[in-house]
């Protein structure tokens, strides 16, 4: 494995290894503190991000490595019209591993085709976000202890939510998974995601518009934000942005051991009053994100 562009490049066995390594890093951080001494990670963020970029940088620094990069396209040569391929050929001369976010779908794949350095897709438009999925999986593993027989509710923007698509793909490979897809009509899961992962694997699923109706069935509730940047039309965004707001009241019928996840940032789709509920795992999820990225960097560099 040289690059990670799509979560489905990883077998479930490889995911298990990453989760095990991430868990070992959590338990024994000192063992890994100098594993990447002398190595450089380039973070190329053509689209703004707080969590993902800092998480990658924190991961590399925690391994003893160094980081360089940019946090928006305007501070890179892309602003001058340079192609992804040319940018990556250049950066490949400066870094040992690259994490890249880009608003256009497929840009990290193009990058990986033009360098011998491992490229990690840190999010490409509304398409994929495999390291968020690895984060979600490490969180599920720690919160639930297993991946099998879980009813996973995904709520909000299921059309443009790249984390949703990658999580569906990943969870569709585990035994006994069921999906409850909760979204407004306009933001339903794209047909290719349903065809490729859910229907092909004969996974039971429901498509509903009512969160409260779905709530009692769920083992995991994955909330997402309606993302302004994915809409070409502001009116559509304004009409749909408040479709779902999770409040303590709506959790009354939820299971006692429900796990509430969110890739963050949130706007208002989870009320802050939910944050103190022990079932709210989204800030723990952020923490897991750093450890799984440490595990991934080590693995891609062959240092695990």
């Amino acid at each position: 494995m040289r690059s990670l562009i799509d979560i489905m490049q990883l077998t479930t066995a490889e995911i298990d290894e990453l989760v095990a390594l991430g868990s070992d890093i959590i338990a024994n951080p000192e063992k890994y503190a100098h594993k990447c001494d002398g190595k450089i990670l380039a973070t190329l963020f053509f689209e703004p991000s707080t969590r993902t970029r800092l998480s990658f940088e924190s991961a590399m620094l925690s391994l003893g490595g160094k980081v360089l990069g940019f946090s928006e396209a305007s501070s890179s040569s892309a602003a001058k019209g340079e192609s992804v391929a040319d940018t990556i050929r250049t950066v490949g001369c400066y870094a040992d591993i690259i994490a890249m976010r880009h608003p256009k779908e497929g840009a990290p794949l193009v990058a990986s085709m033009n360098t011998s350095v491992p490229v990690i897709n840190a999010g490409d438009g509304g398409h994929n976000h495999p390291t968020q999925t690895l984060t979600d999986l490490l969180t599920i593993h720690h919160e639930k202890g297993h991946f099998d027989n879980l009813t996973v509710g995904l709520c909000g923007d299921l059309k443009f939510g790249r984390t949703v698509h990658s999580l569906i793909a990943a969870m569709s490979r585990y035994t006994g998974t069921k999906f409850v897809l909760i979204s407004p009509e306009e933001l339903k899961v794209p047909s290719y995601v349903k065809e490729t992962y859910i229907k092909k694997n004969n996974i039971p699923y429901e498509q509903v518009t009512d969160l409260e109706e779905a709530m009692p069935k769920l083992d995991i509730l994955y909330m997402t934000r309606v993302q302004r940047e994915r809409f070409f039309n502001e009116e559509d965004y304004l009409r749909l942005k408040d479709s779902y707001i999770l409040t303590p009241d709506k959790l009354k019928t939820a299971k006692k051991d429900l796990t509430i996840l969110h890739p963050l940032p949130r706007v208002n789709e989870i009320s802050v009053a939910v944050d103190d509920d022990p079932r709210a795992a989204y800030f723990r999820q952020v923490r897991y994100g750093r450890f799984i990225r440490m595990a991934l960097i080590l693995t891609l560099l062959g240092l695990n």
Partner: protein
Amino acid sequence: MTIDSIRNGIVIDHITAGKAMQLYQILKLDKVDASVALLNNVSSGKLGRKDIIKIDTLLELDWDLIGYVDPSITVNIIKDGVRVEKRQLKLPEVIRGVVKCKNPRCITSVEQELPQIFDLTDAAKHVYRCRYCETKAEM
């Protein structure tokens, strides 16, 4: 109606009725320096109706492209009036440079020198998806 048989050339047979013109255009047969006959709506025992294209010269054709447009096609190569090869086409696994991705969010929408590559993802339904963004191919 009769069309002369050819001595050295290619007969593209069993084209789904109505698709010959599309194939003619995609294969750029208007640029070929030889006679090309396009037969629409010919009676066929196998298909009921079919189209046929006869090309009065031997030339290299993109088999994958023909298979993508219509996998039911058979191609006959004629030399000295004798059929020397009969090719049954099938859906290619990958098509390059034929279909353009229509997703405005795809990297190929802004970097137009990138090769347009589509992979066969569902042979039963003839579905191809953009290698970069997974959008379904549309002719």
